[in-house]
């Protein structure tokens, strides 16, 4: 990870790689796409059985697992697709409009 794009908004034509090549792998993690989300997943730790279905089904790798347990969602990249909530066998995940959280904060 050596491609410094911190100032990319000010880059002129000669600063970019030829042909719009992205010269390093995996840097999409730095691109926060969570802002696209309309509904936010909320997990009830009491109900959750740690079956990890949500972790496997999440299309954006946005279910954070530490050790063997789901601990959180990566809200910088979760787009609110609700696959986790749909697949959860014990309905431990529910979806809530983002607006609710904005009002609270």
């Amino acid at each position, binding site marked *: 990870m050596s491609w410094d794009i911190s100032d*990319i908004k000010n*880059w*002129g*034509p*000669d600063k*970019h*790689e*030829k*042909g*719009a*090549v*992205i*010269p*390093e*792998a995996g840097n999409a993690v730095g691109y926060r796409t969570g802002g696209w989300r309309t509904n936010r997943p909320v997990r009830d730790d009491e109900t959750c059985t740690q079956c990890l279905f949500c972790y496997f089904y999440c299309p954006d790798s946005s279910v954070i697992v530490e050790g063997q347990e789901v601990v959180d969602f990566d809200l910088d990249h979760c787009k609110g697709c609700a696959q986790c909530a749909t697949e959860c066998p014990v309905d431990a995940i529910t979806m809530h409009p983002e607006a609710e959280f904005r009002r609270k904060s």
Partner: protein
Amino acid sequence: MATTEKLMAVTGNQAVAMAMKQIDPDVVAAYPITPQTDVVQSYSQYVADGEVQTEFVTVESEHSAMSACIGSAAAGARTMTATSSAGFALMWEVVYVAASMRLPIVMTTVNRALSGPINIHCDHSDSMGGRDSGWIQIYNEDAQEAYDATVMSFPIAEHPDVSLPLMNMYDGFIISGAIGPLRPLSDAAVKDFIGEKPAVLNLLDSEHPVTFGPFDGLHGWYFEHKIAQNRAMEAALPVIQETYDRFAEVTGRQYQHLMCYDMEDADVAIVVIGSAAGTARTVMAKLKAEGLKVGLVKIRTFRPFPTAEIARVLSGVKAVAVLDRADSFGAMGGPLYLEILAALYHEGVHTKTVNCIYGLGGRDLYPQNIEDVFRMLADAAGGADLPQSRVYLNMKGE
């Protein structure tokens, strides 16, 4: 010279296939179409006979051919293809992608009319349509030029300041199928001239994984990348000339962006692209014997266009006829005419001009047609007006 072989007689297509064989690119992905077919056919024979190391990809269309070339070039492979007319038209979408991804693909485009009415013969409407696609365009008069241009292509396209795809043109049937003289280079001289492909970011370098062809986002840098493409084109102009000069050191054959014939003392001049230049030179010999001061400018490098140079060359003549083998319907004239008018205006050169359209769909251009143009120019140099609208050469019925 040890660097060149004996003089031989070959078709334009055979000449280019030979050059490709000597280059021995990593990948050729191509689809046959008249009149380009025997470039690809000859090359596939070289592959079948084991005379080259090339991976030959037989694709199901020209769109696929160019797409395969893009993948191949992005993987870092030296990549070539060839097409004509409708085949080039079918590539259209990805022709732009190749240029914007800055991939130095080399393509032979054997000029043929676009439909319709459906027509397999020569004109320049296919490649002229692609003049804004971001490819370098070199037009060749005969088999020798087409061969030489093919050998010179990779050093231009792969130059670090350039990194652009390049297409070489020559006239369908007139050059592609007719037999003419060719003095090829030796295999070793070709290898030595083109050298090794410079190292670039590529898809097969697993130590340094990269992404090609990303989405530019909603508020991204598309605009800046387009500017970079144009800067690369500007940089290509001197690189092409340097390559022409280096080629001359090896072969003695000196090319220029514009090839000028008897322009030093010309009163009037014709500007033309491709095989018609040979016909024009024949006519000039006759007219010069009569005392007419006639000159000829043959355009080789069309993209990037040598704007300042064409204006300088034409600044000394009193009347110029620009011969277009393609039309730009609804515009003031054919594509070459528009380019030259813009150059003259930009450089402040005021000379009488006329646009002659010729050869559409393979219509013959006779020496008499060119003689008529030169005489019209001579009258204009003497004070007569030139037609303000297109003059059609060898048109039926009027």
